């Protein structure tokens, strides 16, 4: 009898702590970013934004502790796939996130489908990524959104003859197709469609071609990080004084590099979903907090990462820390105010619906900023409407 009561007490204690222990297991999120290599600036921005979100909102969601595991894929899609596999199988992550370039996202999509793990794309921008797997949710943007918004502005502002210059990969093809189609629809002329390689592009000969073609405007899309080198060549070849307007998607006048570009970038009209100069209270708070924690400005990659974490956290709150299909459904249809403006995750396409701003590069307080002067409200991805 003496031995039975302590034994029963111990059994009761073990049974009582059993389920509670399972509840306090951390829930893991796998963040795969290019921290080295050509797209290292993307990884740096998103990692900083994720850290800021966790600092501001705590590390608990859905009643469980959230652990973010950051892995570097160096923008090599094979590495991304391998890391995603390891995260899903070994670390049992409840969601994958990040994906600096389109090939990385496309390589991981089959793994998300097979393992039923929601995949939050925070950076990549080709329209077809959300169709590669039913588990892909996007918080960045799509090139068709930016290209169509800019083409409409161009048409309203007397631009009739254009030359398009894009990087030779997924988002570049999207940008070229949707921009030139819209220009042709509005009876403009496309004089030439030029492409530069994704890695180590040489802008000198291709800019000479642009000069010789003499269009009203040059439309450019380049991945985040190549804008500064391009602007330098643009100025060095005298193109800024040749009467050819430079219009671009906002990746070229990326906030990350804009401050170092020099006056050659002044007056460039571009279209994008986020500017660090966006005049809303939420954005001012975001930019101030970001700059206080890091030495650099946040750019559109950072906002994609920040909002991606918001989507994951709120979804975990809704499912109380569970993953799989339930988590995916909790991500669809989220509507909230991001530092960029109002944002909706479309429940059917799982893509992002947001305002596309038309901005001009101007100097404020001695620094260059993308100042918004027009917008296309609540723009859905045109790529899904064809």
């Amino acid at each position, binding site marked *: 009898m003496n031995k039975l009561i302590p034994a029963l007490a111990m059994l009761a204690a073990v049974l009582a702590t059993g389920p509670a222990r399972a509840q306090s297991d951390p829930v893991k999120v796998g963040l795969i970013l290019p*921290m*080295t*290599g*050509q797209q*290292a*600036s993307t990884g740096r921005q998103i990692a900083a934004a994720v850290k800021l979100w966790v600092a501001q909102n705590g590390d608990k969601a859905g009643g469980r502790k959230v652990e973010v595991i950051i892995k570097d894929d160096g923008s090599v899609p094979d590495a991304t796939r391998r890391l995603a596999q390891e995260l899903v199988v070994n670390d049992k992550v409840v969601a994958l996130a990040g994906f600096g370039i389109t090939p990385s996202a496309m390589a991981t999509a089959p793994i998300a489908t097979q393992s039923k793990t929601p995949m939050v794309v925070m950076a990549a921008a080709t329209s077809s990524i959300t169709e590669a797997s039913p588990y892909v949710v996007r918080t960045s943007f799509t090139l068709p959104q930016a290209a169509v918004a800019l083409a409409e502005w161009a048409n309203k502002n007397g631009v009739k003859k254009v030359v398009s210059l894009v990087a030779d990969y997924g988002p570049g093809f999207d940008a070229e197709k949707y921009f030139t189609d819209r220009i042709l629809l509005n009876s403009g002329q496309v004089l030439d469609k*030029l*492409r530069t*390689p994704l890695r*180590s592009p*040489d802008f*000198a*000969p*291709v800019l*000479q*071609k642009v000069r010789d073609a003499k269009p009203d405007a040059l439309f450019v899309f380049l991945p985040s*990080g190549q804008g*500064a*080198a391009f602007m*330098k060549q643009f*100025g*060095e*070849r*005298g193109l800024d004084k040749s009467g050819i307007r430079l219009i671009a998607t906002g990746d070229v006048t990326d906030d990350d590099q804009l401050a*170092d570009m*020099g006056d050659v970038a002044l007056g460039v009209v571009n279209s994008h979903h986020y500017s660090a100069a966006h005049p809303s209270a939420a954005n001012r708070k975001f930019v101030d907090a970001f700059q206080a924690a890091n030495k650099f400005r946040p750019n559109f990659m950072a906002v994609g990462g920040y909002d991606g974490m918001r989507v994951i956290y709120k979804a975990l709150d809704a499912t109380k820390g569970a993953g799989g299909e339930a988590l995916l459904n909790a991500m669809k249809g989220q509507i909230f105010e991001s530092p960029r403006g109002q944002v909706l995750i479309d429940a059917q396409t799982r893509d992002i619906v947001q305002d596309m701003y038309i901005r001009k590069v101007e100097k404020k307080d001695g620094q260059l900023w993308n100042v918004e002067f027009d917008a296309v409200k609540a723009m859905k991805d045109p790529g899904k409407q064809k």
Partner: protein
Amino acid sequence: MLTLLFDGVAYGMLLFVLSLGLAVTMGLMNFINLAHGAFAMAGGYVLVLLMQRHGWPFLACLPAAFVATALVGAALERTLYRPMYAKPHLDQVLFSIGLTFMAVAAVDFGMGSSQVNVQTPPWLQGRFELGSGELTLGMGRYRLFIVAVCVALALGLQAILAGTRFGSRLRAAVDDPRVAAGLGIPVDRVFLLTFAFGSGLAGLGGALGVDILGLDPSFPFKFMVYFLIVCAVGGTSSITGPLLAALVLGIADVFGKYYVPKLGGFIVYVLMIAILLWRPQGLFTRESRR
């Protein structure tokens, strides 16, 4: 078209400065130094560090890049390279490529992976435009500066080779090291000075090329092939060989990217294959003696 020609010449001269050290090393010491690209990258980063962190003026950073890289080259030659001279070529290749990987990783760790941008001084920005219409010759000031520096270097080096005692010792050692040593020429010291000078030239080329070629930790991997092509096509026994080869390749590259952008950078390889099929010993070498 003239502008394209000028751009090609400028690119070619930059390649020449970068490749000359490699050509001399391969011809003189029969050593395949695949780490040459790493020396070029080192020179580029010396320029970036001095200009951005210490505010040195651009013109002062160029000789500094040369001297710094030359010193590193001399130190490495004395300690690491000298035991490798007698080893078979494969060992030399493995050693130098290993050195390159180490350099790339070290720079990646220390300076970050992204492209570095240098602000060229205002007197080197802008361009001169001569002529009009089809025959416009637009010469960017920076490229003009590069052409001027490289021409001066080429003339200076030719003068040294032909006119000084060191030059004749170097030519003797290249021609036949054993006989040269037998005549009392300190071949070891000639090797050391030449290797240091060649590395210094690579550093200078890297520093000059930051604006044109870009600079990031993977620079050696991206451009090593071009240096090797210049040496293969131009031969390793003179200065004019690599000079003309570099010019041909630079012009072909720029024209190719303009007229046939789909082939783009592949034009250089096509040209190399064609030239080597026609003259396997390179365009400008006499029959090889080894």
